[in-house]
């Protein structure tokens, strides 16, 4: 048991560190380091532009999408090298946020199911950040039940005609391409009538509308499709096989969202370390200490769980669904942490003028963003199902819609 790199790993780490040190946009380092859930932005620069520039620089030097094959814009690196890169990239990694969907989900799906010529054409600019991709799965009627989607794709000659609506599409407004899950046959049970495509987001008939979140920010979109035409050669996988194709994507989604999940604990501990309460330093108050200790061991438990997963990677093993615990634990925790941080401020916790931005504002942003964490990429309830079923081997939920033609499934509860 040790935290040492193997010689190859150490060499790789040194190379990466040197390159990052020479090339990273250091002027934003401090600001990126301090950003926390609910607020990643830069004061004096457009974060999208900074992110694209950094990604392009990385790609030109062979540091983009490390685990992808070289011919598609990657480096052909091992999973553990990718992890080492992330460790070294540190706060600059937060700039990758806009590429996560493309690199983590769309890319792997294209790699598995697209034609060779499409891979060579589309993957390198995706890797380099020149083109941004989004994922069009969720629908208002879908939610946790992804396969309950209703967006129709109907064959018309060599093309498919798309009508319907997607929701929760991260970054649709700045995306160039998207992968799209559609229903091509509503007369068969729901998992059997789906088909996957990729499409140009600038196609006629695609309309992107931002969703204003509970927090007031807009990180997601609704996307409407009105007679959008997609050539058949942009189909990914067989007609009717869309569910299996999408599993590739979703598996990757849960992995990547689980990875760097915020708990809010470091922020709270730092805050409490200097905070004065009415009766003395917060850090000497037993009630505060007890709460901190309980969160501390959750935060460290997640940290070391992820180190165990990295060790497995390093040995060439594939980490399992155990990783689902990251988001499950962190989601509720950050909500509780934020609530408590406001509590410690008393009545002043509700206000967030400029002078309060560093404290109240930070935790308020967390509080408002946290409910999203408990839902996105699988709700807490879905996560518990995954753990119970895939890790513990418990039975699946009873599926009343399993053998029912999709268009016979009720759509309204009452």
């Amino acid at each position, binding site marked *: 048991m040790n935290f040492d790199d193997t010689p190859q790993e150490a060499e790789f780490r040194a190379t990466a560190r040197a390159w990052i040190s020479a090339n990273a946009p250091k002027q934003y380092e401090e600001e990126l380091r301090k950003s926390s859930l609910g607020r990643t932005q830069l004061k004096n620069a457009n974060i999208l532009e900074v992110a694209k520039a950094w990604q392009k620089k990385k790609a030109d030097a062979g540091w983009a999408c490390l685990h992808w094959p070289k011919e598609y814009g990657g480096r052909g690196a091992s999973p553990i090298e990718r992890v080492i890169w992330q460790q070294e990239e540190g706060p600059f990694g937060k700039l990758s946020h806009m590429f996560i969907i493309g690199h983590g989900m769309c890319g792997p799906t294209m790699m598995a199911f697209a034609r060779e010529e499409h891979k060579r054409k589309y993957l390198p600019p995706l890797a380099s950040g020149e083109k941004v991709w989004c994922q069009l799965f969720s629908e208002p009627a879908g939610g946790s039940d992804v396969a309950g989607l209703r967006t129709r794709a109907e064959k018309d000659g060599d093309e498919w005609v798309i009508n319907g609506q997607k929701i929760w599409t991260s970054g649709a407004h700045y995306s160039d391409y998207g992968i799209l899950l559609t229903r091509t046959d509503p007369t068969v049970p729901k998992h059997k009538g789906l088909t996957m495509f990729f499409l140009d987001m600038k196609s006629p008939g695609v309309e992107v509308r931002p969703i204003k979140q509970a927090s007031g920010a807009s990180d997601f979109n609704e996307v409407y499709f009105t007679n959008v035409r997609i050539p058949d050669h942009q189909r990914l996988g067989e007609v009717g096989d869309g569910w299996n194709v999408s599993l590739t994507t979703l598996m990757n989604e849960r992995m990547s969202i689980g990875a760097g999940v915020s708990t809010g604990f470091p922020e709270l501990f730092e805050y409490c370390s200097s905070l004065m309460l009415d009766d003395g330093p917060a850090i000497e108050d037993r009630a505060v200490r007890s709460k901190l200790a309980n969160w501390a061991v959750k935060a460290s438990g997640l940290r070391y769980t992820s180190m165990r997963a990295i060790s497995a990677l390093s040995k060439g093993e594939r980490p399992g669904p155990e990783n689902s615990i990251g988001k499950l634990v962190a989601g509720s925790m950050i909500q509780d942490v934020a609530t408590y941080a406001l509590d410690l401020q008393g009545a002043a916790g509700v*206000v967030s003028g400029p002078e309060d931005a560093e404290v109240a504002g930070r935790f308020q942003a967390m509080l408002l963003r946290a409910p999203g964490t408990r839902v996105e990429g699988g709700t807490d309830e879905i996560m518990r199902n995954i753990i119970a079923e895939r890790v513990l081997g418990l039975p699946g939920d009873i599926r009343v819609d399993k053998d029912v033609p999709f268009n016979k499934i009720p759509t309204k509860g009452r």
Partner: protein
Amino acid sequence: MNFDFSDDQKQLRDQARKFLAEKCSPKAVRVVLDGKAPYDKELWKGLAEMGFLGVAIPEEFGGAGAGHLELCVIAEEMGRANAPVPFSSTVYLAAEALLIAGSDAQKKKWLPAIASGEAIGTLALFEGKGNPSPKNVKLTAANGVLNGVKKPVADGAIADFAVVAARTGSNGRDGDISLFLVDLKAGGVEVKNLTNLDPTRGQAEITFKDCKAEPLGAAGEGWSILTQVLDRAAVLCAFEQVGGADRALEMGRDYALDRIAFGRQIGSFQAVKHMLADMYVSATLARSNSYYGAWALSTNAAELPEAAAAARISATQAFQHCAKNNIQVHGGMGFTWEFDCHMYYRRANTMALGLGSLSYWEDQLIDRMRKKNAA
């Protein structure tokens, strides 16, 4: 024993609910939420006309002279409707302070104006971080002139007058604090609106610069009066919180019945059912604790301090719990600006701090239980 509201009080609750359903739809709340108005003036006027603002104000001062139980049932409905009006500042804090400590002239000046909706009042207690405590009051009063900064002051930007806690001594005791009444329109104050978690209830910073003020209650009695005011407000706010919790629970329940996933109402999944059952449990505990607080408030019982703290804690927890998990039941939709879930989440988290934090009230409750046991 009749540990319940009377039929008349229940009728008043129904009346308030009906009125608010009509005049205070979520759409109306959103006008304030979106910053298009500092509060809902029409609604405020309507509340005055219905007699709700002065329900606990004696008839001689222009109120309905009903009582605190009547105010409790109205408070519950205000919470349920998430009403964007300065009700708690004006009615629970300012009016109660006047009722407890105001001179006859002060009552005559302000209470009828409150009841008629002409005057908005507030309590200016906090000065930045911290909970209610004499030592957190730094603003000074000397020769009827106030100097200092209060923040946050709920509804401070729209208030016509404020009850201000000021330091008039330096013995390090409760007796150092006195209360003052300030006409905020009369000069000597500078009011700044503050960005805050729940835009449907404004928060302000008020700077007092050689501001003229008249004493409210006897000199040195400020903290003792404030404690009574906060206890009363704790019970009244608890009813708002119970109303909010109930509404959040209902919203979640309704969504769980309407929404289909995997071919079933999502409310047929135990994960969702049991989440809602747990919300019902905390809302019920809060309601029962609040009823006890209402009894103690309405009878001015010796149990009020303990009852108020228990109601405050229980209702704060219930509203936070229900508002939070209502979003979870709604899934992604609950996290949109368009759905109303976040309005209750914001309100729940704001109300949790307004009279001092949950930690503060936990501490208060234990102190008060010890005192009772010692007595």
